[in-house]
């Protein structure tokens, strides 16, 4: 959906045209669900959070600023709802280890990886992502999956762009550490093979 189309739909929705808002819901629900599901890892909660986010977005349409993409605003609402849900679950702060969140349902896109090796790599990566803190995970997902800038991610997370960069950096560093540890065995084998062929 182009930005002008989006602006037109929002303007119509503000004037009370339900069909315009329906188009927005249909356009963004998949992306929003992918993001929310990664945060809460539960199908029912994903549906609830997405529904609540859209309803809240509709109710607050008058406060929406066209300076940002509708998706940025929608993700902002959804992110806060996710955090509230996670806090209610464990009553913990944003910087606490949320790794338990990853113990939810199995990944629905398991079928995407064909070979055993590809499947393993994929699982390792998503398991590592699940071990990131909510701000790190959100920053990483919004950056890579949604292609959002650090400034836009800052709007979603309610923090300055500089802090987003820091979350991104720490998130990637943590991913590197987790994956390095997991893949160390494989690398040892590769190194051993390399050493023996060089000798």
């Amino acid at each position: 959906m182009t930005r002008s189309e989006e602006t037109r739909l929002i303007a119509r929705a503000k004037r009370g045209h339900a069909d315009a808002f329906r188009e927005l819901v249909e356009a963004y629900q998949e992306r929003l669900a992918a993001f929310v599901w990664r945060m809460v890892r539960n199908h029912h909660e994903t549906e609830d959070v997405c529904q609540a986010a859209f309803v809240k977005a509709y109710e607050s349409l008058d406060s929406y600023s066209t300076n940002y993409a509708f998706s940025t605003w929608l993700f902002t609402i959804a992110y806060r709802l996710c955090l509230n849900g996670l806090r209610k679950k464990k009553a913990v702060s944003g910087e606490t280890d949320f790794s338990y969140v990853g113990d939810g349902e199995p990944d629905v896109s398991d079928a995407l990886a064909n070979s055993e090796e590809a499947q393993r790599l994929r699982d390792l990566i998503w398991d590592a992502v699940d071990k990131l803190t909510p701000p790190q995970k959100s920053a990483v997902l919004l950056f890579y999956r949604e292609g959002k800038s650090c400034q836009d991610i800052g709007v979603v997370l309610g923090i300055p762009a500089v802090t987003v960069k820091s979350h991104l950096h720490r998130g990637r560093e943590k991913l590197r550490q987790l994956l390095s540890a997991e893949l160390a065995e494989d690398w040892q084998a590769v190194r051993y093979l390399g050493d023996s062929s060089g000798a």
Partner: protein
Amino acid sequence: MNCSEAEHFFDAYLDGELAGSLRLEFDAHRLRCGVCQQKLAMMEACEHILARDGRGPLLSDDFTDRVMDEVEQRRVITLRSRKRRIVWGTAVGVQAAAVIAFAFLWAG
């Protein structure tokens, strides 16, 4: 450049922000270091999966309808409360006007 120095520039390299002599130094290290090559390949795979493989579960078929039903319900509630406010506001205004008019008449 050694491995630990190179690792400081991984993010910048992966984001395409490494340029000039620093990029040259980094490339020189990367070409001869198997460990850094593997780490970078791992991060590239990670980025690829994050970007392409992050599909969530499909929402229910009636998801849009449910959202729109709730939106409609909220809209009706808002309209009702707005109407109620208008009715109450008008009633209070009329009452106040009546009290003032009565006060004037009584004083006169």
